[in-house]
């Protein structure tokens, strides 16, 4: 049993010598171990590099390192050309005619209601359906005449607008053409291809000459406006022919509208007179227009707009719907599984919900297109849901996104509840609280910040999701009419993620639309960073409060 007295060491050097000699390495100033360490470190840096590259690529393709060539600069020029070429002028005129169209639409609405009433009346009187329709239309003939006369009021203006619009778009096209050629030339010059650069010739557009027809049209416009005002005044004196009292009541607002239109006519005229194509556009317009313009309009023959508001509205509404559904479900299920469920349920349901989180979003999107949208429409036809027309809308996308967010919220909530010290719970039970009271008064408050960050991260997942909204949101670029109350939820919308997915493939590389889409991406990126930041802050506070 006794160890051998003589130990033969592998390394025969004396201790002193052995420990004071450093190992050799490939690189003289680094040990082998340090080399390996730096190799691993370089990999770890990759995540910072990637994050940096994401920012770099988003920034350089949207705002750009030369801002005048980036989105804001281009958008500024886009808006400047809109003014310089006179599109702005023509748009003022169009507002007038659209006022008249508005009147027509008002009357058409009233007519439709009356028509339905008359048909119903006719059926009650025992007429066959088509007979009832014919009779109703006949009865409305005087009204139709009135409407037709009203609509002719805009004709003189339309006659003026049409050529002016053509002139303005022609000017705009010429200006953009020159712009392109300038860029081309600059590019050639920069790459020292002087001969090619010389071949690119262009002639600056004489803007004054281009907008001259617009100014010249002013007298005729004023003339037309006088006629229009007179015409409107005439319609004021002759109220639309009402068939019965109900219709009369419905028409009560007509005079009001006509007066309103007459009142704004001088304003428009004033705008037209003072319109000046040389009026400088404030430098920040390119930026503010992106954030506050209510239109996102691309490939339009008239004027393109790149305003994020309709997309933001769509994304936000869908996210709200999704969260309203997902938060109670996710948090509720988290509480249930952690505190109430039997061990058997815990073993089955927890993996099952994690399993759900692996369903690819495009499959959910397909499910929305193929099944859920149709199902909701069917519900509406059965009268369970209010009437709506588009099967792909906010609610379809919202439900599916909620389903996507539920596992995230569930898992994080469950974690947060799990982290509440057992002693809290035991102390509460020891004081005679029942399980619900303990959950409600002790466990939820203690895990609140965890739950909040769960909800935030769920929100992040929802707002960044692409395929479901691309397939199920209806892809109609609009700020849905909030005046409809909850019916707004059945409107089709477009989203920030969806627009990128849909339009980037068709956008010209390096063009303004391309830049605009990257700008939307940058905006999304900033939002996601913000959400992350908030979630981390909330969790950090939570850790301190627990001690």
């Amino acid at each position, binding site marked *: 049993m006794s160890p051998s007295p003589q130990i033969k060491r592998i390394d025969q050097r004396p201790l002193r010598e*052995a420990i004071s*000699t450093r190992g050799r390495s490939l690189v003289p100033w680094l040990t082998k171990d340090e080399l390996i360490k730096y190799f691993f470190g370089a990999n770890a840096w990759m995540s910072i590099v990637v994050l940096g590259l994401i920012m770099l690529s988003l920034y350089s393709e949207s705002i750009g390192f030369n801002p005048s060539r980036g989105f804001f600069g281009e958008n500024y020029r886009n808006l400047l050309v809109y003014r310089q070429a006179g599109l702005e002028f023509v748009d003022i005129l169009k507002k007038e005619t659209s006022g008249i169209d508005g009147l027509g639409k008002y009357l058409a609405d009233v007519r439709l209601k009356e028509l339905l009433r008359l048909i119903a009346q006719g059926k009650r009187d025992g007429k066959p359906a088509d007979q009832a329709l014919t009779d109703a239309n006949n009865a409305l003939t005087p009204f139709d005449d009135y409407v037709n006369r009203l609509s002719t009021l805009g004709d003189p203006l339309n006659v003026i607008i049409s050529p002016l619009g053509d002139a303005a778009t022609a000017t705009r096209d010429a200006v953009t053409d020159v712009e392109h050629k300038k860029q081309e030339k600059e590019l050639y010059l920069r790459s020292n291809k002087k001969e090619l650069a010389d071949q690119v010739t262009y002639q600056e557009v004489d803007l004054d000459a281009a907008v001259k027809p617009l100014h010249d049209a002013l007298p005729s416009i004023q003339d037309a406006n006088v006629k229009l005002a007179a015409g409107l005044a005439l319609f004021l004196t002759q109220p639309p022919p009402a068939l019965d009292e109900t219709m009369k009541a419905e028409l009560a607002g007509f005079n009001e509208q006509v007066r309103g239109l007459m009142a704004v006519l001088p304003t428009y005229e004033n705008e037209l007179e003072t319109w000046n194509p040389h009026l400088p556009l404030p430098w920040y317009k390119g930026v503010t227009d992106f954030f506050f313009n209510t239109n996102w309009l691309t490939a339009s023959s008239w004027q393109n707009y790149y305003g994020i508001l309709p997309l933001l509205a769509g994304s936000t509404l869908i996210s709200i719907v999704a969260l309203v559904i997902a938060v109670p479900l996710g948090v509720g299920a988290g509480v249930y599984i952690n505190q109430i469920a039997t061990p058997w349920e815990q073993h089955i349901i927890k993996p099952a919900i994690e399993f759900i989180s692996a369903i690819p979003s495009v499959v959910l999107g397909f499910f929305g297109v193929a099944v859920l949208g149709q199902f909701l429409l069917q519900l509406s036809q059965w009268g369970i849901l209010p009437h709506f027309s588009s099967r792909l809308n906010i609610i379809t996308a919202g439900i599916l996104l909620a389903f996507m967010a539920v596992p995230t919220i569930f898992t994080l909530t469950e974690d947060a509840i799990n982290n509440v010290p057992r002693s809290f719970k035991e102390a509460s039970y020891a004081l005679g609280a029942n399980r619900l009271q303990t959950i409600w008064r002790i466990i939820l408050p203690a895990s609140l910040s965890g739950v909040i960050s769960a909800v935030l991260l769920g929100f992040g997942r929802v707002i960044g999701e692409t395929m479901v909204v691309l397939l199920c949101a209806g892809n109609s670029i609009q700020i849905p009419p909030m005046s409809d109350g909850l019916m707004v939820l059945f409107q089709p919308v477009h989203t920030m993620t969806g627009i990128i997915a849909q339009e980037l493939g068709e956008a010209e590389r390096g063009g303004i639309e391309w830049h605009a889409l990257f700008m939307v991406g940058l905006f999304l990126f900033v939002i996601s960073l913000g959400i992350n930041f908030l979630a981390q802050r909330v969790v950090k506070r939570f850790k301190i409060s627990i001690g």
Partner: protein
Amino acid sequence: MDESKPSAQTAEVVPTKVAAPSPSDKLARLNAPTIIDINNVDFYYGASKALHGINFPIKNKLVTAFIGPSGCGKSTLLRCLNRMNDLVEGTRIGAGSIKISGVDIYDPSVDVIELRKRVGMVFQKSNPFPKSIYENVVYGLRLQGINSKSRLDETVERSLRGAALWEEVRDRLHTSALGLSGGQQQRLCIARAIAVEPEIILMDEPCSALDPIATVKVEELIHQLKQDYTIVIVTHNMQQAGRCSDITAFFYMGRLIEIDATEKIFTNPTQKQTEDYISGRFG
């Protein structure tokens, strides 16, 4: 009390006395040469100072026990001796030096790896690797590129015999080390440590997680090992220190209070704090 001087006159090196000391010949042994020389060591965890001016020698082929209440710095000092504290973030030696065989082990020229090969360590919690018993023992040799089967077999037998484990495990060398009992695991860790043939073995409360019977076996083992190795043992258990050490150092609040021959410390300490601790009045 920063510089408590060892009361026994041990500073002189008497190299001729090294050969075959017998356990009974205590006085002779106390005059063994110094192998580790701890010089005024200050040690910091971040901003807080954990060791204050520790200053004493550790003698060759003797068992030195560090005792003291929890948090007194005895484990910290032990882990300084093979620079395991390098792995803990924010730690540093503030002042002083630790010399092993006259080499300052914190000098930049020192190869930590070589140091650790020569200064083995056994941990408080036995930490066998999830490999077979055999592979656990030869781990250190394989690291040094030794793969010859005969050499490994020989080392395994010698080390396991050295750790008094051979008889118990000789038939199952290739089964998992995790299947051993707690005491066996700890002895396996000792076998693993002596397999690389160190000169010094550091033991950090090696018996704190063991039952009394296993403890006795490990203590017997320490008795055998001290014929070949210098052993430094940290322990909570005063009887253990009394049973198996030659020299005992008492630490309190990061300071060395007293160091002396074990018998003297336990029977006639010079410092009141030592007496209070040993008689169980605190700690």
